[in-house]
């Protein structure tokens, strides 16, 4: 150990100040990886050297720096937290596998398929009904007092987006302008979230310069903290991708 310390003794200060040549730096790093004493010594020299930062005059950065960092942190937390729906989805997935095997064994495969088709047809009819009443809902939400703007970024830079919501209600309206069209097979998806939960909502494509998207949530909108729009596969996702194009507080 003693010999190891001697080996990098003349390099410790240069390393702590990031003032070594590349070859010397590698030599130090290889050495402290195997020598605990030298690592401790280096840490002490490093900690002293870093206090030189206090010699620079402290200057408050602009507020926008904090806003951007905090927003980035909130988003990362948002993306990395498994959703309740995702956890439930995993359980349901296991059950679905078991059920499918059982159904095949019982010869009920055809009946199951017919039910699925029927359910999809029902869903389509409901969707058409929703479309028919959308204009009326826009007028309703436009009169609400709570409006939240979303920040556009990435390929959506230049787009604008607002959420219209009524506290206590499980619905809201997202109005987006100038969102670019996506390649085939891709779609925009809306999410709302709060710590520990993010909730997938509507999937939409931007075919017009102004898109109005109805949002229906399991719980009142004002119980969520954030809203975001990501780019996902056309069928939507249970876990948001990293490709966020709109983000805002609720």
């Amino acid at each position: 150990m003693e010999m190891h310390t001697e080996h990098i003794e003349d390099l410790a200060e240069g390393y702590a100040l990031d003032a070594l040549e590349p070859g010397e730096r590698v030599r130090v790093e290889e050495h402290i990886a195997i020598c605990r004493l030298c690592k401790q010594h280096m840490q002490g020299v490093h900690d002293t050297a870093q206090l030189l930062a206090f010699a620079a005059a402290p200057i408050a950065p602009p507020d926008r720096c904090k806003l951007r960092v905090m927003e980035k942190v909130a988003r990362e937390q948002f993306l990395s937290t498994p959703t309740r729906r995702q956890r439930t989805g995993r359980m349901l997935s296991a059950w679905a596998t078991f059920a499918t095997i059982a159904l095949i064994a019982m010869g009920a495969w055809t009946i199951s398929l017919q039910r699925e088709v029927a359910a999809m047809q029902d869903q389509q009819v409901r969707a058409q009904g929703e479309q028919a009443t959308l204009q009326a809902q826009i007028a309703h939400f436009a009169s609400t007092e709570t409006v939240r703007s979303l920040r556009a970024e990435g390929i959506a830079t230049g787009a604008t987006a607002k959420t219209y919501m009524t506290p206590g209600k499980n619905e809201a309206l997202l109005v987006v302008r100038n969102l670019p069209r996506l390649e085939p097979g891709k779609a925009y998806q809306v999410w709302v979230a709060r710590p520990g939960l993010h909730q997938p909502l509507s999937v939409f494509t931007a075919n017009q310069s102004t898109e109005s998207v109805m949002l229906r949530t399991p719980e009142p909108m004002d119980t969520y903290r954030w809203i975001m729009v990501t780019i996902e596969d056309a069928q939507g996702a249970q876990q948001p991708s990293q490709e966020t194009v709109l983000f805002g507080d609720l």
Partner: protein
Amino acid sequence: MAQVQQRPADAVSDEQLIEAVARGDRHAFETLYDRYSPAVFGLALKTLREREVAEEAVQEVFWRVWQRAKSFEAGRKFAPWLFGIAHNYCIDELRRRRARPQPVYEDDEHPVLSSIAEPSDVADAALESEQRRIVIGALQQLPAEQRQALELAYFGGLTQQEIAARLGNPLGTIKTRMRLGLQKLRGILQGQYAAE
């Protein structure tokens, strides 16, 4: 070695806060940002010398703090850890931009006294000012050539070889100045903090 002065007893320590950050506590992270962003911005401005680039540095440094909080080793002090991240970023950026430093200070004899700005938060600023006073006081006790070598490396991003070339001194001389400078600085700071 006590690298940072203790905060009032009712204040949560930096080390407690970074442990909370490691558990995903954004409020703890915000508190650390409020405490240290002026120091990080000051370091970035002094090193990178462009306001816009320094603003990016502050954001990136604190983003790395958030991402690396889990790797913070218990028993260490937060400030040197943070400044290590900040310094690495600034020096890498400086070298990447190939913006080799101009003379870092206008006043080579008393360089660190040449730029003083107002910190943001009063309570934290008072503490930060005290830490700054101690470090500047310690630097002033170093022989000028040792102080110069440390500052050219730390704020100027110069390697030992580059410093030797710039000052026209043998490389060994520069290494010795750095070693003696940091050793003496450590001794002075230990004495200062012990006396507080």
